[in-house]
């Protein structure tokens, strides 16, 4: 069950001919798949394409009616390998994942798929996680398309264009027997817009029909001599076929008049370019402009004839290509040179080589290109702009704190790292290898644990060099449950067992693939209608041959967590020491239990709600607890007491009562300021009686004492 329910969106997938879909780009793509008669869809969740997976997961019923097979693949490699179903059979298939990280994982299958080629349309939808908000290394998917020779679509970022790209993607794939990659950037995936829908189409051939009529063709299998023929075929047959299709259907668009300068851009850059032209007074609100634009909705392969023709009558062209290396600009340069063109080619240089092409980068880049090569186009005040000097706000820059992402309120991973920090206070610093997932936030304050991150499920693998039994210390490596099932079980754990790695491995088990939106995985504890869950990680570890396994069933028990870590770091036992630390992702738990809790109270059931608090007069304001927490709901406040210099700890309304503060205060012997308050709604008669009695006795004792002393009202003692 994902973090978000897509019940509403699922309804949108049912829209028919001539109706209007309004919603997120990524959901428009999902609808487009069904309109194209896709036969099967697979993928691996991850921003920005998680919603595609989530909505299909919630749409089982519609998929069933259409005979579409949907799979939440084990990894991006699995999802891409799944496209093998389109090699021999005329079935349209789609795979989706986050890129470039997902494409890295998928590239083995991708290369094999691309070599043999496809019969049914094979579409790979990659969510290009580049620029602001990205959580991964900054690279381009473009290189994968070039190296495996699969075609790369990069449509203009509006719903009609990306829907059209899906439709053409399948046809292009079939016309050229080549898998096609559809690249959509983060904001394009989350852009809210609308398009006119068509009826959903049953696949021409379902996977069931294919199963019943197996086919094979040795020439499609990657083995000599076929593999050599595949390479030639790519160049002699598939590429020309693709270029022919692209030209016949005008996938690349040319706008504007015929001026002496032109702009050549990736489709995804179109809105940014138009905005720059609008601000320069060269395009109207609807994007109408006289400046010649050549929009590459297909960024690989490039159609040399079209590009050379576009440049033919121009004095200068600017290539607007986000990210590096500048593959398109290089290719265009070669084309123009070979064609003996004289046009001046601009691109990187006027525009930055690296980084996202944001609004101001575009405005500056295109502005200076035009000022240099077509100043006459520009209004005088734009030609020689008198830029207002940017105000100096040094004091503000010093004041505003950085706010990197971190653990949520009540996150079960927080106590794991609090315990690690405490264990290190006793046993000294260790080499810690991190992995991909929420737990990577451990590298940030207040924990600052973790030296590297080498890929999904590769945390322990990235510590495998540190296997020196004669060394005084062991390495610690973390891997999440998501990474564990994605790749970690074999690449990390299997490797550690086989190579007798002596390090400590902590598997962070929060019941979901949490960072990507709380999708279910093999070890999820919830029952899932269409998936097989509840497969214990500990069983998998045993199966892999791990001898030393400890299971911490409640990560919030910081004391146990710390002692388990200390045992793992000090035991005489050889071979990998694996700790499985389990507690449910609080975000999902709240989402699951919150409504039930409210309902139960409404129904008059006895329910307990826990919250933590700080006795402000006991807290001395040393903030030691914060240095072992960083919980958003544990903050500081200034007391109205002139005797106090520093603010004291305070817990706000958002506390979910996870208990980390109390546990840490205890385990680290910090202070007695924390208290746990359990509020019982709909108490039983016995509750009321006992509570009432206790309260009477307690009040009597309090009154007795307070009668014998001076009481200063409203003094925080």
């Amino acid at each position, binding site marked *: 069950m994902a973090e978000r329910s897509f019940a509403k969106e699922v309804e949108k997938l049912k829209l028919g001919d001539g109706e209007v879909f309004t919603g997120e780009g990524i959901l428009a793509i999902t609808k487009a798949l069904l309109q194209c008669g896709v036969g099967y869809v697979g993928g691996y969740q991850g921003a920005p394409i998680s919603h595609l997976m989530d909505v299909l997961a919630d749409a089982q019923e519609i998929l069933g009616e259409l005979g579409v097979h949907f799979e939440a693949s084990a990894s991006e490699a699995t999802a891409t390998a799944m496209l093998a179903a389109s090699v021999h059979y005329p079935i349209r298939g789609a795979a989706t994942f986050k890129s470039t990280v997902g494409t890295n994982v998928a590239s083995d299958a991708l290369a094999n798929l691309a070599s043999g080629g496809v019969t049914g349309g094979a579409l790979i939808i990659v969510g290009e996680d580049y620029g602001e908000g990205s959580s991964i290394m900054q690279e381009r998917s473009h290189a994968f398309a070039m190296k495996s020779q699969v075609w790369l679509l990069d449509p203009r970022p509006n719903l009609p264009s990306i829907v059209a790209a899906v439709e053409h993607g399948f046809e292009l794939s079939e016309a050229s027997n080549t898998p096609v990659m559809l690249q959509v950037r983060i904001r394009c995936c989350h852009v809210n817009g609308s398009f006119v829908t068509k009826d959903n189409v049953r696949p021409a051939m379902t996977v069931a029909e294919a199963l019943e009529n197996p086919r094979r063709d040795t020439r499609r299998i990657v083995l000599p001599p076929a593999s050599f023929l595949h390479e030639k075929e790519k160049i002699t047959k598939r590429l020309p076929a693709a270029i022919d299709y692209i030209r016949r259907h005008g996938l690349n668009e040319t706008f504007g008049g015929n001026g002496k300068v032109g702009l050549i851009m990736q489709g995804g850059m179109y809105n940014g370019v138009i905005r720059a032209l609008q601000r320069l007074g*060269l395009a109207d609100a609807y994007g109408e402009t006289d400046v010649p634009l050549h929009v590459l909705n297909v960024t690989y392969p490039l159609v040399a004839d079209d590009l050379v023709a576009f440049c033919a009558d121009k004095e200068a062209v600017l290539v607007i290509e986000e990210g590096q290396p500048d593959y398109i600009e290089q290719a265009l340069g070669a084309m123009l040179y070979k064609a003996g063109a004289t046009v001046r080619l601009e691109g990187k240089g006027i525009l930055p080589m690296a980084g996202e092409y944001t609004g101001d980068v575009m405005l500056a880049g295109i502005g200076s290109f035009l000022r240099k090569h077509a100043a006459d186009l520009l209004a005088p005040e734009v030609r020689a702009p008198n830029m207002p000097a940017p105000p100096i706000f040094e004091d503000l820059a010093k004041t505003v704190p950085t706010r990197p992402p971190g653990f949520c309120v009540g996150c079960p991973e927080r106590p794991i790292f609090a315990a690690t920090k405490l264990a290190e206070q006793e046993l000294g610093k260790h080499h810690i290898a991190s992995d991909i997932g929420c737990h990577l936030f451990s590298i940030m304050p207040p924990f600052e644990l973790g030296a590297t991150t080498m890929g999904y499920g590769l945390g322990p693998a990235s510590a495998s060099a540190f296997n020196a039994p004669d060394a005084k210390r062991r390495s610690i490596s973390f891997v999440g449950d998501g990474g564990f099932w994605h790749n970690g079980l074999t690449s990390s754990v299997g490797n550690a067992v086989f190579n007798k790695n002596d390090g400590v491995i902590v598997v962070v088990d929060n019941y979901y693939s949490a960072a990507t939106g709380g999708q279910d995985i093999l070890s999820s504890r919830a029952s899932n209608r269409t998936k097989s869950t509840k497969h214990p990680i500990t069983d998998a570890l045993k199966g892999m041959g791990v001898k030393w396994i400890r299971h911490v069933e409640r990560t919030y028990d910081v004391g146990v967590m710390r002692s388990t870590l200390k045992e793992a770091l000090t035991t005489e036992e050889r071979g990998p020491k694996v700790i499985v630390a389990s507690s449910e992702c609080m975000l999902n738990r709240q989402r699951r239990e919150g409504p039930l809790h409210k309902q139960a109270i409404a129904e008059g059931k006895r329910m307990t709600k826990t919250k933590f608090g700080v*006795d402000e007069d006991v807290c001395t304001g040393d903030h030691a607890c914060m240095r072992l927490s960083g919980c958003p709901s544990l903050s500081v406040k200034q007391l109205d007491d002139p005797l106090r210099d520093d603010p004291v700890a305070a817990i706000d309304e958002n506390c979910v009562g996870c208990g980390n503060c109390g546990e840490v205060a205890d385990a680290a012997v910090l202070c*007695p300021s924390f208290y746990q308050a359990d509020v019982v709604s709909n*108490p039983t008669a016995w509750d009321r009686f006992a509570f009432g009695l206790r309260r009477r006795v307690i009040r009597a004792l309090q009154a007795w*004492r307070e009668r014998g002393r001076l009481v200063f009202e409203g003094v925080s003692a």
Partner: protein
Amino acid sequence: MRLGLAEGADTTRAIIKLAVLAVGGQGGGVLTNWITDLAQRCGWHVQSTSVAGVAQRTGATIYYVEMMRKDPARPDASPVLALSPAPGDVDILISAELAEAGRAVLRGFVTQDRTTLIASSHRMLAVSEKIVPGDGRADSEIVLKRAEEAARRFIHFDMESMARQAGSVVSASLFGALAGSGELPFPREAFEATISSGGRGAKASLVAFALAYDRTLAGPPPEAEQLPPAAPAVVGPAGLRDRWLALERRLEKLPEPVHEMAGHGLRKVVDFLDPAYGMEYLDRLETVAKADSSVHGYALTHEAAKYVANAMVYDDIIRVADLKTRSSRAERVRREVHLGKDQTLMTTEYFHPRMEEICGALPATLGAAIEARPALMKGLNRFVDRGRRIRTDGMLGFGMLWLVGGMRRWRRALLRHRVETAHLEAWLDLALSEAKADYDLGVEVLKCRRLIKGYSDTHARGQSKFDRVLGCLQMLRGRDDAAAWIARLREAALKDAEGAALDGAIMTVRSFADMPDGKAA
């Protein structure tokens, strides 16, 4: 930061550009969806984008909306809208938290010529602000000042607590402020229709919306007269009250500038033990006052009034037990959890006593005798040193703490008291003797008491920082910047827990004081 080019030829004036900056989990997405729905409802072209995913988890996030009135002449044409905000090109910037408003200004999204900045003035502290041993909070005044300068129009008030009042979340009050600002050409009804269509929680959201809407129109409420806070009422048996009045009369004889602070201090020490303890406090202040003079505005006595009180009110288990068993405390907890009439409450205290604390609460000679025998300490500690959860809503747990709290009256005979008193007197004497030669230095020595706080290890670390700072006195004594340096060292000691900054500062002192490397650091 690069601002936009001269906007003379800009053709996007018809487009309203709106950005929302929030902290992940604050509901920026909800607000963005509302704004999008609102524009659609009113028949406008609208496009919104966000950056979802793990980047949102409690981090700074940004949402962006562009909208434009439909042109009857071009019913089927749709405008080309941008997917992210550009510096110098934002009309409305909504910030769900004050520091994020500051970030928006730094990123150039708030500009004099066009931007209306709508921000909730409450703070959600970043981790970096909370983990500082001293006070690491960012200065909101700077943010407010700069935002005021940067924006064409700046609407700010605490929309968070306003939303909480209504049982809703900040996105609702922000939406109300947006409506109230009149920056969007849509009627209030349209805003409310959008919220109502949301279903769950709509009622509370509408209340929060209305509160913020009205507050935005009405502007800030008039400043309430700041009356000097009346001294808190004192209740208790007549005998004790008379002794209290005697203390107050004696307090009056102290120099006027210290009266208020000394009043706070006096209440604190009497509350800690008894009126006699108040006498001890005043004795100490009078000694300081004698050495002090109006020339310096009695700064020395003023600081003494503050820090001597804090030193006399040390945090022992008796005090903790006493505080946690008071009726006022029970009241506060009930308030904090909003305990309903038909609800019951259980409170659990998290204690982790060690032998050190136990010895401190033993008769001085006995406690000292045990502490003198490490083996015995260790042995006994095995029974003591563990986490203890005590139910203060239960008779047993409460009764136990109540009894411990009752040990107040014997405090003077206990080990901790003897230790603390000795430490206090040594420190006070040091301050006074320094003050003779260098008044300001004496004052700074008093202020160093701030470094001693916390329990167990934290307390020990504070103590050692205190010693290390004062350890530099011998190097600084006689220099005319001695006081300034002690102040600097103290500030450094409050920067980080491990005292790295302090070590650095001490190095510096040592470098110019050209002393052979001692053990101070």
